[in-house]
């Protein structure tokens, strides 16, 4: 009993378990908080800031903040919605997101959140950074133009003997995803598919798959992200 606490999200009272993050508690209570870098069973990284909420007047990341008794969370206020839209728009202009040419289009979480917020054009100027498309493995391509540095692949993809496969080199604007080529032999079809799937965007591409699902039948063609949260 004592491990249950009560807090409010946008004025709605919810019950959460002590030790849960705000995102987890919201999910259990059918409240959608958009996330990109957060992924089930991975330690939160807090890299994308899309889950930003206001707690007691401060903006914090909901994926990396634990619930507390009596906490007052502001999730869908005009201010937080605009903040999140700005973050999503930034992610678009900081890469080269040519959705019409992208294998992930329709299944992409970044795009899905932009649809969720009905973004028609970013408020920031496009940076058109110079980035490359790299064939790193017989089964995998890295499309650096689309990587949002969420680190889901870094945290979530391991070889059978538990070794990491992806990492980042450089810092700030020059940051770039790399694949450890010495692990190439350990990447079988299954792990390659897992890598492409854990990536929320189209930055890790499994070769030979391409545009396999017709338009209209892709994950987010008809169903909005977060819709299953019963809002």
């Amino acid at each position, binding site marked *: 009993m004592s491990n249950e606490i009560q807090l409010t999200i946008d004025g709605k009272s919810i019950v959460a378990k002590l030790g849960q993050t705000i995102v987890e508690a919201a999910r259990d209570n059918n409240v959608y908080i958009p996330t990109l870098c957060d992924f089930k069973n991975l330690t939160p990284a807090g890299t994308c800031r899309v889950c930003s909420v206001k707690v007691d007047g401060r903006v914090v990341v909901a994926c990396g903040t634990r619930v507390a008794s009596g906490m007052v969370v502001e999730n869908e206020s005009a201010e937080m919605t605009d903040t999140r839209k700005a973050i999503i728009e930034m992610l678009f202009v900081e890469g*080269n*997101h*040519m*959705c*019409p*040419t*992208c294998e992930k*289009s*329709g299944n992409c979480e970044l*795009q899905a959140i*932009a*649809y969720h917020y*009905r973004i*028609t*054009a970013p408020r920031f*100027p*496009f940076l*058109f*950074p*110079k*980035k490359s498309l790299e064939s790193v493995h017989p089964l995998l391509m890295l499309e650096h133009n689309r990587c949002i540095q969420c680190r889901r692949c870094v945290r979530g993809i391991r070889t059978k003997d538990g070794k990491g496969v992806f990492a980042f080199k450089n810092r700030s604007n020059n940051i770039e995803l790399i694949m450890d080529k010495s692990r190439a032999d350990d990447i079988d079809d299954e792990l390659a598919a897992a890598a492409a799937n854990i990536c929320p965007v189209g930055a890790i591409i499994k070769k030979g798959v391409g545009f396999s699902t017709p*338009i209209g039948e892709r994950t987010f*063609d*008809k169903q*909005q992200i977060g819709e299953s949260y019963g809002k």
Partner: protein
Amino acid sequence: MANKPIVATASLAGCFGCHMSLLDIDERILDLIQLVEFDKSPITDIKNFERKCDIGIIEGGCCNSENVENLKLFRKNCNILVSLGECAIMGGLPAMRNGIPIQECLEEAYLNGVTVDVGDEPIIPNDEELPMILDRVYPCHEVVKIDYHIPGCAPNADLIWDFLTTLVTGKDLELKYETLKYD
């Protein structure tokens, strides 16, 4: 009917897909011409602005000097200017050359590309009649003020229909999930 809103359209660095999508509203085009009047547009083949228009619809971004001139002309002659489609909004496929030096692009296209006919003496086209190509492709709203953006490649016909009809009737547009797509 008098005083129907006047619509002008242009295709800059686009593929005409957005204009095709406008025609994809099918028989509703008959309703549309009850609501608006088309002026300068590839659809009417009217080449010059003879009067001020209410709505200008732009397909494609700016890849050369002529696109820029045309876009500025539209801004001057239209009260409301709309970017229609990914190319107008963010450069689209033509913008895939952004980040590659223009010299390299031209050499690849006209001198070194695999489809260049080596039988002739290949040259980079330089006739003074040709518009100057820009260093990169520019989204329309980075060149002039754009009032509305309608995404899609090409934009869904229903989205175009909803947008135009709500705009001319002065209602608020509710962007439907199924019609707002970037591809």
